[in-house]
């Protein structure tokens, strides 16, 4: 049975930007976009795209990528297409600002999924690396009345069911649910593939579909979570650098220092 898979992927500021580039405008309650460091597709969402592509290789079908935002860097957000996804739908509207209010985000994504209509599996990342909310996927599942299994590191589909290996702190557990279902994936799923040159060429030609809030007919819900302050925590530790005539001496002196400080 061919599978209709929807992947929800978010464009985020590069979470691995150097700490020195990370700056907050406290008055505007915003992270200042770092100069010269482009945004990226949320890492776990690339894992989600990878999971969808692997399932398509086995079952055939279609992988549709859904992303919501007010503005996009097209070359960035097209990456799932160059990895091999079939279609990209941009939910783009000035009202679709990036907020920690997951109720709002889940409402818009659920409306778009309803509009797509046909789906067997919705795959999300475990969390978006900007607000680290880790709940939009759960919201989509609740709003659509679907089963949800989180923290997947392996996904199998068969007999109208999905089997997911969930990451636990000391191993994993296997959970099963009937399709259609929502699954979230973690980095333990494995590295997402690199786009091939052919993939990149194809993605350049493919134009995303764009839906506004009017296209979705979605009513913007009352705000549930409001950001009231955003700041960088103070780090006041003073590091004492261990000295020595060469690196071996530094090593020895470090051990002696740990003893002196009664840490060992």
């Amino acid at each position: 049975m061919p599978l209709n898979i929807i992947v929800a992927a978010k464009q985020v500021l590069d979470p691995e930007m150097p700490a020195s580039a990370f700056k907050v405008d406290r008055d505007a309650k915003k992270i200042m976009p770092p100069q010269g460091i482009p945004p990226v597709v949320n890492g776990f969402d690339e894992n989600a795209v990878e999971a969808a592509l692997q399932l398509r290789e086995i079952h055939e079908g279609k992988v549709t990528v859904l992303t919501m935002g007010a503005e996009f860097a097209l070359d960035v957000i097209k990456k799932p297409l160059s990895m091999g996804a079939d279609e990209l739908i941009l939910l783009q509207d000035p009202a679709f600002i990036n907020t920690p209010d997951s109720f709002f985000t889940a409402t818009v994504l659920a409306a778009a999924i309803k509009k797509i209509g046909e789906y067997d599996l919705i795959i999300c990342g475990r969390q978006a690396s900007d607000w680290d909310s880790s709940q939009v996927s759960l919201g989509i599942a609740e709003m659509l009345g679907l089963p949800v299994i989180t923290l997947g590191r392996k996904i199998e589909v068969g007999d109208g069911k999905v089997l997911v290996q969930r990451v636990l702190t000391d191993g994993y557990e296997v959970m099963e649910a009937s399709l259609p279902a929502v699954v979230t994936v973690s980095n333990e799923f494995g590295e997402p593939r690199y786009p091939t040159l052919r993939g990149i060429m194809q993605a350049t030609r493919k134009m995303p579909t764009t839906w506004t809030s009017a296209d979705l007919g979605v009513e913007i819900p009352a705000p549930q979570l409001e950001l009231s302050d955003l700041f960088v925590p103070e780090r006041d530790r003073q590091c004492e650098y261990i000295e020595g005539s060469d690196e071996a001496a530094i090593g020895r002196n470090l051990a002696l220092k740990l003893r002196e400080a009664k840490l060992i």
Partner: protein
Amino acid sequence: MPPVLIIGEVTPDGDAASITGELIAAARPLADGLGVELVAALPGTSSQRAAATAITLGADKAYAVEDPFLDDPSAFDAHVAAAQKLCQEIGPSIVLFGRTITGRDVAPRLAFRLGTCAANDCVEVKLDSDQRLAALRPVFGGSALAWVRCLGDVAVVTVRAKAYEPLEADATRKGEVVNFSPGLGRDAVKSRLVERVKEDQTQGLRLEDARIVVSGGRGLGGPDPFVHLEEIAKLLGGAVGASRAACDAGWVPATLQVGLTGKTVTPDLYLTVGISGASQHMAGCAASKNIVSINKDGDANIFKEARFGAVGDWKNILPAFIEQLQELVK
């Protein structure tokens, strides 16, 4: 008056799990500030004793929420349905969960059913001047902190483990223990646990419990150098951890990962080798009493949080360090 509700947890032995006391400690000032009751719920198959403990830890009233479907921490569907029924019964204005295996899936789902969303992984909660709940959350992998205000009719929050110290237990405290059976049916459950596999073969000391943790990162360059870290851990009676980069590369099992999406450790000594100190890594170890780092880049972020730093190539530093350690602990 709508009460403040905390959803505690019950251990397999029927005791109140430590998060229960932490949540009560977080919620007590909220309930007092609002002038309402603090209600604790203990979902499980047999949670009378845990409910009684919740009273001694500061709850005004405790619900032993018992149902055969609540037999497992991963029975999320059942836990959501039970919490929903309890909320219908008592109509809380604030619901606190722990950011635990159960809480991270259950709290947001309950929130969405109540028409709102959760404030997740909070390290502090308080009432704003207008009596709304405000919660402090690390965001952007811990690079920033955000105060978020819950504007819905109900505020649902997950509180990070160990963010609050339980209040001192007082066996003389009085409070009502109520039996509540949500009467869950099969229809409440949409996903099923098939099997659970323990992969962590660590003998003895768990990473989370170790007083000394020695963690390695991408700077080690491969799996083999981890034997040096194991040697140090053995000498000092500690455990070995790793950055996500080292885990993702397959050098060590994913169960060793320390950080935002890995384990949280709070040892007396956290020794890192070849770890840059990305905020997402620090999220799992910043509460360590002493961070000590070996890194060849003196500007690495890890030194901003370290008490002692050794700048240089671990290949030259570690052998001499280990030799000296051996002498010291002899």
